């Protein structure tokens, strides 16, 4: 009987020792001087994560935790004062700015990169270009079969992001509502709300009927990226770095960081790092478009 208790206490103690041993071994000796929280868009969470990783490598005494969830989530926690930096793939909304004011939060905006939203289809899909109007009709389920837009006779599977994702909001405003503030158009209820961009990519990869939109960072040569024209008279533009940077690709957007008030200390250091040459190189590496060449 006593033996059991003794053994369990020993196991607990040794695991605690192991725990702290590991900590020493990985962290060096110690305490960090400051800790910041970054929260927000799943689109750029991967970019921010790499930034955080490299930033901490240079400044090992700082701690940065990065959490995804969506741009709305990020703003919400900036307003609730539970994070220091919000990463967002859209600008703050009037509604959110108002809430922030009410909570004594003063959001300051930094543009840190650009992102083109690419429309993906499976490699075996013959369709390779669409107009914004066709895209809108597809996502509102007015066009439901690939044969209506030059494909084979198959039902279109529409993939969209969750409603709290900045990508979702941006696509809705840009493609479905054509930037018209009074429009009430919504994604068709038949669209699959995927919980992440990677999930959309994965589904498109193995499903020849699927069509979805993701940030440029998620596309690669295993899927087909469509060229998009503003209308049927316009030129079809392929989303690449150049076309996003010069603004000719119609579905692109800036990426932002927001802080509460002018950034100070570590927060300032981190944002400076993001805008530095090295930081912008990371932007390229994670397949976004840097704001500076």
């Amino acid at each position: 009987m006593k033996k059991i208790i003794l053994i369990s206490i020993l196991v607990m103690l040794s695991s605690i020792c192991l725990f702290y041993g590991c900590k020493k071994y990985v962290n060096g000796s110690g305490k960090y001087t400051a800790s910041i929280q970054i929260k927000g868009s799943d689109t750029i969470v991967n970019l921010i994560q790499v930034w955080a990783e490299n930033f901490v490598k240079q400044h090992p005494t700082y701690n940065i935790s990065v959490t995804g969830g969506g741009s709305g989530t990020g703003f919400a926690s900036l307003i609730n004062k539970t994070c220091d930096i919000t990463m967002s793939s859209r600008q703050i909304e009037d509604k959110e700015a108002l809430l922030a004011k009410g909570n004594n939060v003063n959001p300051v905006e930094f543009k840190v990169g650009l992102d083109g939203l690419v429309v993906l289809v499976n490699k075996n899909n013959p369709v390779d270009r669409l107009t914004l109007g066709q895209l809108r009709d597809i996502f509102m389920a007015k066009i439901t079969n690939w044969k209506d837009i030059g494909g084979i006779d198959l039902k279109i599977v529409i993939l969209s992001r969750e409603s709290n994702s900045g990508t979702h909001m941006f696509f809705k405003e840009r493609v479905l509502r054509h930037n018209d503030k009074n429009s009430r158009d919504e994604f068709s209820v038949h669209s699959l709300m995927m919980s992440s961009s990677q999930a959309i990519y994965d589904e498109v990869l193995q499903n020849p009927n699927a069509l979805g939109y993701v940030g440029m960072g998620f596309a690669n040569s295993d899927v087909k990226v469509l060229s998009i024209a503003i209308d049927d008279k316009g030129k079809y533009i392929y989303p690449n770095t150049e076309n996003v940077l010069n603004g000719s690709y119609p579905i692109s957007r800036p990426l932002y960081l927001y802080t509460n008030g002018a950034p100070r200390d570590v927060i300032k250091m981190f944002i400076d790092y993001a805008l530095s040459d090295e930081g912008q190189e990371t932007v390229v590496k994670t397949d976004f478009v840097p704001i500076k060449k």
Partner: protein
Amino acid sequence: MQKVLDLIIEKIIFICAIASIIFVILIFSFLFKEGLSFFKNYEVSKFIGGHFWYPSSDPASFGILSLIVGSVLVTLGACAIAVPIGIMTALFISEIVPKGARDVLKSLVELMAAIPSVVIGFVGMITLVPLVKSIFSLPTGLTAFSGSIMLAFMAIPTIVTISEDAIRSVPRHYKQGALALGATKWQTLRRIVLKAAMPGIIAAVMLGISRVIGETMAVMMITGNAAHIPHSIFEPVRTMTATIAAEMGETVRSGMHYKSLFAIGLVLFLITFLINFIADLFLGKNKNT
């Protein structure tokens, strides 16, 4: 001195017992408070009966009918698979296999119950989803059906363990009586044992259902999350649990969207409360026989 110490310890023990009631009341009142303040601004009938879930649009629409249908459909699908298989497995383990193998099988079933739902979701996403898509030639494999299959594997251990207990607690003389009258083993099993164990088995099924309906990660990863009322089980659905998990992150505190998720939580809580209550009634009945 010893007496005072005893008294203090007994009081501490008593307080700990009350803690569980306090937690239930806390959870309930908390959900109720947040959910109720949602219903102040939004009609209950529009919430339960509304077809559209557009929580962040302007004006927002908070209809959870499609989410309820989604949850129910996935749950029914999972039950259709898990209930017969679960009960049959329980019969097999308790009455047919020899004693040595029985312990091994029971431990195996218990281990099955321990597999985390993210792992089940992950494996389902990579193996089952493409399979379902190609076998039924569907537009997508992310359907209620795939969700049901994976969830069935999470409900089976619960159903097997509890119904096995019920079957084994059937008094031995029932069986001996039937066998003495010349019934075959199977006849005894089907007509006597199964009937006597029925309340326990129903309780097992109820607890299985409650596990499935509350399951979150696996459904979020494999059911497609399309918030519409499906026409068949081969269409994507979105469940209540997945909605909460996907959208809660940290919606603006005290905003309508935030409260609406608590209202969904309240609905879920009430549903599982009811199911567990029924299961408990049946379990109590089983003990009396």
